[in-house]
């Protein structure tokens, strides 16, 4: 406030919500998902989180110093910690340590600071980092632990050792494909969905285990909605977009396309719906624009999943929609009080 010429206009009081408060709420909302991760995959995720957050804080400090910004005020807003957590949750828990370091570095330095830091980044930095890793290290990012081998998962020290020393992450014995990539391979082999049904990969709602991660994200999303950190528009329209496209595909050919419930609880749908699509910086902000943004991102997610070369399409869909967000905002201006619906003088 000190840089402004005085006197600064009223109001001189401010609401209780601040940026650090918002970021804290997002971190709280991620706790259920992280718990489920630990339950399903062991302690790898915790080690990864430590690495990611440390890297993020160090790189953010360096970037802020280079750009001549006050360090304390900007580091304490917590946005970079949220970024690190989201990126960590998107990659397999036992990938080698340098993968997450490279991903966080790209996300913080290129995705965030090259565009001007918090509030100015066009693309969601976490998704930018994830896509970078996806394109550079596709193999490392496909080695998810197999759900049926839960007993074999390493403990905390074993996880540290594996992440620090293994060059490929999980040994072949306990690594496996996620349900989405499993489907992709099976479909490529001309198998239909009814033939795959018996596979151990499938659970009650979607992929075995993955459904519970998505339910955990949904719970966290409920918390965010309750604390009014996010509004219903973006998450709901995103889910409707995915569900609508999935339903359409399922009706057209049930043997090649699974139903709406599967797609809602598979892969990163819920993570995207509540934590990525709702990133206020890079998504649309007008009421109608939010609905349009979420719905289109949902459609695109489904399209990349079903027709693209990658198992999950969340990151691509969201980055594409990020690029369109300013345009959407421009053309979905709400009606101004006292004007007609075209915002002309009445």
């Amino acid at each position, binding site marked *: *406030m000190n*840089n*402004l*010429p005085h006197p*600064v*206009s*009223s*109001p001189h*009081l*401010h*609401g209780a*919500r*601040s*940026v650090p*408060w*918002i970021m804290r709420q997002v971190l709280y909302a991620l706790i259920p998902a992280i718990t489920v991760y630990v339950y399903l995959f062991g302690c790898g995720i915790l080690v990864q989180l430590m690495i990611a957050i440390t890297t993020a804080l160090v790189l953010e400090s360096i970037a802020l110093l280079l750009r001549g*910004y*006050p360090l304390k*005020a900007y580091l304490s807003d917590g*946005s970079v910690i949220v970024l690190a957590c989201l990126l960590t949750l998107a990659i397999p828990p036992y990938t080698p340590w340098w993968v997450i370091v490279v991903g966080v570095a790209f996300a913080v330095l290129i995705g965030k600071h090259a565009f001007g*830091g*918090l*509030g*100015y980044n066009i693309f969601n930095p976490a998704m930018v980092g994830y896509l970078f890793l996806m394109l550079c290290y596709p193999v490392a990012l496909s080695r998810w632990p197999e759900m049926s081998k839960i007993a074999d998962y390493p403990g905390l020290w074993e996880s540290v050792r594996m992440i620090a020393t293994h060059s490929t992450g999980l040994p072949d014995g306990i690594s496996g494909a996620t349900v989405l990539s499993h489907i992709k391979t099976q479909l490529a082999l001309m198998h239909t969905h009814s033939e795959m049904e018996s596979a151990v990969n499938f659970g009650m709602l979607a992929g075995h285990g993955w459904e519970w991660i998505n339910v955990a994200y949904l719970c966290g999303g409920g918390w965010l909605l309750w604390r009014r950190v996010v*509004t219903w528009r973006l998450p709901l329209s995103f889910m409707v977009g995915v569900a609508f496209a999935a339903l359409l595909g399922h009706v057209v050919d049930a043997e090649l396309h699974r139903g709406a419930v599967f797609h809602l609880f598979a892969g990163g749908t819920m993570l995207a719906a509540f934590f990525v699509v709702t990133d*206020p*910086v890079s998504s649309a*902000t*007008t*009421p109608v624009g939010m609905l349009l943004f979420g719905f289109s991102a949902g459609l695109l997610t489904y399209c990349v999943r079903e027709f693209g070369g990658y198992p999950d399409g969340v990151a691509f869909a969201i980055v594409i929609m990020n690029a369109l967000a300013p345009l959407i*905002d421009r053309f979905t*201006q*709400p*009606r*101004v*009080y*006292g*004007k007609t619906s075209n*915002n002309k003088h009445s």
Partner: protein
Amino acid sequence: MIWTLLALVLMAIAGILVLLRGHEPELPPEDRLVSEINAFLPQTQCRQCGYPGCLPYAKAIVSANAPIDRCPPGGQVLQGVLGELLGRSGSSSSRVVELAATSLSKVAVIDESACIGCVKCLQVCPVDAIVGAAKQMHTVISEECTGCELCIEPCPVDCIFIVDSVTDVAQETKENLSNACIRCGDCLPVCPVGLQPQQLFDAARTSDIDLAQELHLFDCIDCGCCAYVCPSEIPLVHYFRNAKSSIEAMDRDRAVAERARGRHEMKSQRLLEQSKIGVRSGLELADVSALNAGELQRDIKAAVSRSSKRRQNDNDL
């Protein structure tokens, strides 16, 4: 094979030629360019450029390749605009930089108690903004005055001053480093008018006045709800008020310039017609040269003593 390659090369050459033709800048008619430049000039008609007015200067820029850095009231902004328009740059060490303070926000004021009614200032005023008659007190119509300072020098009793006409409310709002908008959108639902405070903030911060007006900046009622809920505590209202007042100041300047241009044209026209039919205006007839020399000296002395007495009184107070 060779023929295919040849055909491709020929096609490429043809394509390049077509592109080059399309790229050749089509020279606009000179008159259009002149009026375009004239529209950017401040219309003070102050002659500081060395030409008899803004239009002649514009013509000289186009036809005589006159330097574009000769307009102090326009300042560096004008120089930039003209440089972009014409594709050339003025010398950076020009006097424009030093004199850029002159602008439309200044007007001339006549110390009426000291005026001897010599009509010299009336004759030089490019926009007929001084009223009066021979041996009668003169006064400045401040709404029409462009602050060109041309009337200062001819005044025999030094009774004309330049003052600031309006206090400039539009202060430059500095970029506030510690408050970055995270576009959370909290300000949207609270705006009673249904504006987009965060997009408006972007427009105001970057001085994008077109965008700000497109986003209905002037419908903002300064209620402060957006600034209250903002988690980054950005003084949004302050930004909006600054933007509003700077846009209003610009509109005001533009209106003054437009009027000044019209009045200057009218005056030139009048002088032209008078010279055609050989009529000398009443003002010229009443020129001080026609007055008795002794009478003039007496008047000047009286005026100087009046004004010095008044100044002394002011000092005593």
